[in-house]
């Protein structure tokens, strides 16, 4: 993306954001509430127009792409979902195959996506009867079933227990063909998952780069206006809010 600017009402969320995401990288967007993380994801998905700048996915300008073409490039996991009528989990996941038209292998693709999110046993359940964590994993499985090179995730683990949080992130990381851009609030989960990090302040400034360079205690303290400290536990760093 080049010189990207996003506004919400009178507020400048993002100014002059330029960065290149290479195929196979896993980016995590970190920032305070209302910093424009979700807006950024929607702009990347082409669902919201940017006030300035351009976004390209795999060489295609997002604002010039057709809806069908975009659907083949990226999938988005929203942080909310609607289930006004009852439907089975498998039916819900199979909505992602719309872009392929009628096809024979849809069912297998849907079941495989569900299995990746540890939901294989839920396939015939009613989505409306799922717990929030289960429903969220079904939403991620739906995006996986869309089978796109780029995956955009808005807080994909906000309803997951610690075990499933690790599982979801590890399995997303294991799909190396897929480029991932995820908004995460859990800094430690971000540290575990990301290859690259974008810090978004909501006040206009931003920092982006490889995880080790960007995700530091000082930068996070600035970002959240809170003292954040780091400790080493074996090979991993653990961030915690200082007292």
């Amino acid at each position: 993306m080049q010189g990207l600017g996003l506004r919400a009402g009178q507020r400048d969320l993002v100014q002059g954001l330029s960065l290149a995401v290479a195929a196979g990288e896993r980016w995590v967007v970190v920032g305070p509430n209302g910093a424009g993380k979700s807006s950024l994801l929607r702009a990347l998905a082409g669902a919201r127009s940017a006030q300035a700048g351009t976004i390209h996915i795999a060489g295609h300008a997002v604002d010039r792409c057709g809806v069908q073409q975009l659907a083949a490039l990226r999938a988005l996991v929203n942080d909310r979902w609607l289930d006004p009528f009852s439907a089975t989990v498998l039916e819900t996941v199979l909505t992602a195959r719309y872009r392929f038209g009628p096809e024979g292998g849809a069912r297998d693709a849907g079941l495989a996506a569900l299995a990746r999110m540890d939901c294989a046993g839920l396939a015939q359940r009613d989505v409306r009867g799922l717990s929030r964590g289960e429903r969220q994993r079904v939403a991620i499985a739906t995006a996986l079933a869309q089978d796109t090179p780029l995956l955009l995730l808005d807080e994909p683990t906000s309803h997951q227990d610690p075990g499933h949080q690790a599982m979801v992130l590890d399995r997303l990381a294991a799909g190396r063909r897929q480029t991932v851009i995820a908004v995460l609030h859990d800094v430690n989960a971000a540290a575990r998952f990301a290859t690259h990090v974008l810090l978004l302040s909501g006040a206009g400034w931003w920092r982006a780069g490889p995880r080790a360079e960007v995700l530091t205690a000082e930068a996070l303290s600035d970002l959240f206006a809170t003292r954040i400290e780091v400790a080493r536990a074996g090979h991993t760093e653990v961030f915690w809010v200082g007292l």
Partner: protein
Amino acid sequence: MNEPRARILLWLLAAACAASLPLSLMLGSVALDARAALDGLLAPGAATLPSAIVALRLPRAVTAIAVGGLLALSGALLQALLRNPLADPYVLGISGGGACAALLAIALGAGAFATHCAGVLGALAALAALFLLARRALFGAEQQSGESAASSILLVGVMMASLAAALLSLALSLAPTGRLRPMVFWLLGDLSGALDPAAAWFSLAVLVVCAWTGARDAAALNLMLRGDLQAFTQGVEVERVRRRLVIVASIATGWAVALAGAIGFVGFVAPHLARFALGNDQRLALPASVLIGATLLAAADLAARTVAAPAQLPVGVLTVMFGVPLFLWQLRRQ
């Protein structure tokens, strides 16, 4: 719902719908046996009793099927577009808007065709007003909690229905006494005026075209049910599909209202039964709704003609009496 079972159910529904036609020809204040009905059907214009009876009953039966199918289609589309299982062209005041416009056209001395067109335009205007007024609840913050969105749409719809009812009453109180009876017809919903075979067959064609147009977008509608953003990211041209389906729903409602007045709750009941039988896949639920609505209204009209024979009840009274308890039960369950 597995594919073969769904297919069988759809065929059964189609058979039931088709079966309502000969039954409607045979039953009534004067019963015909199958042979007499067939004779009447094959010799239209012959100066025999069966021919005369069939000439009266056939357009009415075909109109019942067309109107029932159109209302059910409109209800099914509205329920999906508004993501609200309580939506119905009658409850939301769309039938009322169509009836208002049709009544106005009559008052201005318009002919039958112009009255039909006015009905369609009135329904379209009412639906446009509904979408405009409930826009924030529907598409504003994208995803309000389902409950508040549902209730605000219903509230707007109920207000519109009240306004339409008031306008209709106003027109009735200003109308000359001689025109009162045909005007009350619009309020009650009645098929006794459907005597023109050309209009009946044309209405059936309208139903087929509307249902076909709606069914083409059924797969996209499945995605739009789950949120506009979601559908967009999965490759649906949300705005375009919605505009097309809103127009289809308006034409369906307007045409049905123009033919038979404001018949209530068929558009609510039929999609419910369809979903109950076949699940929520719109590719199955839409055609099933149309077939069920057509069969239901044909059956209701048959009952309206025979229950108190030789007197005839307005069919709209029967559908509302059947529909309201189901509506309340569904409302309670939500």
